[in-house]
């Protein structure tokens, strides 16, 4: 315990920190502009402990909160807890998600990015970077494939052999549906 506190004091020796062991903590990095020395200051941000989960004995956080088949690409408040500030997913060994739920959340995060629902989680471009061709701003949602990887369907075929366009993702086929209409994935 003493060794750990001395380690922490060495690591964060450039700033005074409030350390506390109650509640949850989130570490974040910040660059400090000191003239000759470039230093990174870590801050332990305190987050107050929230309400207890309805199913505390489960291993995966989605199962702990009983949200298994209930989330979609629009639930940005849920998805934003599992992404980094540049939009990438956090590793499974850190978040504690089980494999299927990690994949489903990754798919929903991709669809949310393509729908433009996470505008502040874009990767940082180097300074002064001007894109060569201005990209067309087209609204989209439930996009399964990446935009540059899809080819146009020039010959779509007759009704019995039609090349359908994919919408949504089959991984989310077991989501709860409150209406009567079935999930329509091939348009």
């Amino acid at each position, binding site marked *: 315990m003493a060794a750990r506190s001395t380690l922490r004091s060495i690591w964060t020796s450039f700033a005074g920190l409030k350390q506390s062991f109650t509640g*949850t903590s989130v*570490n*974040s990095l910040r660059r400090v502009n000191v003239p000759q020395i470039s230093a990174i200051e870590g801050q332990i941000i305190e987050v107050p402990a929230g309400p207890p989960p309805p199913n505390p004995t489960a291993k995966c956080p989605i199962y702990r909160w009983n949200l298994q088949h209930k989330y979609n690409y629009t639930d940005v408040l849920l998805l934003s807890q599992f992404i980094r500030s540049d939009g990438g997913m956090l590793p499974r060994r850190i978040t504690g998600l089980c494999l299927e739920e990690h994949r489903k959340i990754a798919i929903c995060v991709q669809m949310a990015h393509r729908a433009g629902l996470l505008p502040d989680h874009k990767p940082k471009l180097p300074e002064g970077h001007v894109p060569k061709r201005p990209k067309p701003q087209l609204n989209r949602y439930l996009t399964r494939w990446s935009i540059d990887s899809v080819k146009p369907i020039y010959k779509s075929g007759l009704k019995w052999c039609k090349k359908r*366009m994919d919408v949504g993702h089959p991984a989310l086929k077991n989501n709860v549906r409150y209406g009567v209409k079935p999930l329509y994935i091939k348009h």
Partner: protein
Amino acid sequence: MSSFSRSAQQWATFARSWFLIDARMQPPGKIATMCSVRLQGKHKPIYHALSDCGDHVVVLNTKHIAFSGNKWEQKVYSSHTGFPGGFKQVTAAQLHLKDPKAIVRLAVYGMLPRNLHRRTMMQRLHIFPEDELPDDIRANLTEELPQPREIPRKLSEYTQEEIDAFPRLWIPPEDYKMK
């Protein structure tokens, strides 16, 4: 309404109304079905194919239409000029950049019945790429139709209280550096 006089009831039944639809962030197919139903007059109990009972429909903001899936890249609009070698195929994205009204217009055209009334019904459809309307059309509007698709909220549109009210699902380990 039963409180109307006979002439008022007659007018209310047979008058041609003007509907307004906002197509911002909406799928063009769903907009087109709503338009085609009202252009034919199928939303009226007095409908008959020969009785010219269709209404006018005004569609706004067709420049901000939203396709589901990868249709912007996959959907292809084909046409032939009639001359040899005149087969043109354009993706939805290219067509939209060239003419923002074309996608909704072609969708409605394909959903109307294939008879001689189709052209007159298309003349009663008024499409505008942005919010601006001419004043005479704005004066004619009677009803606005609800949008078919619920627009999801972006993360930046949530207030800080709503973000704080949502419980944290997992606690990061103390020595993990979040970027």
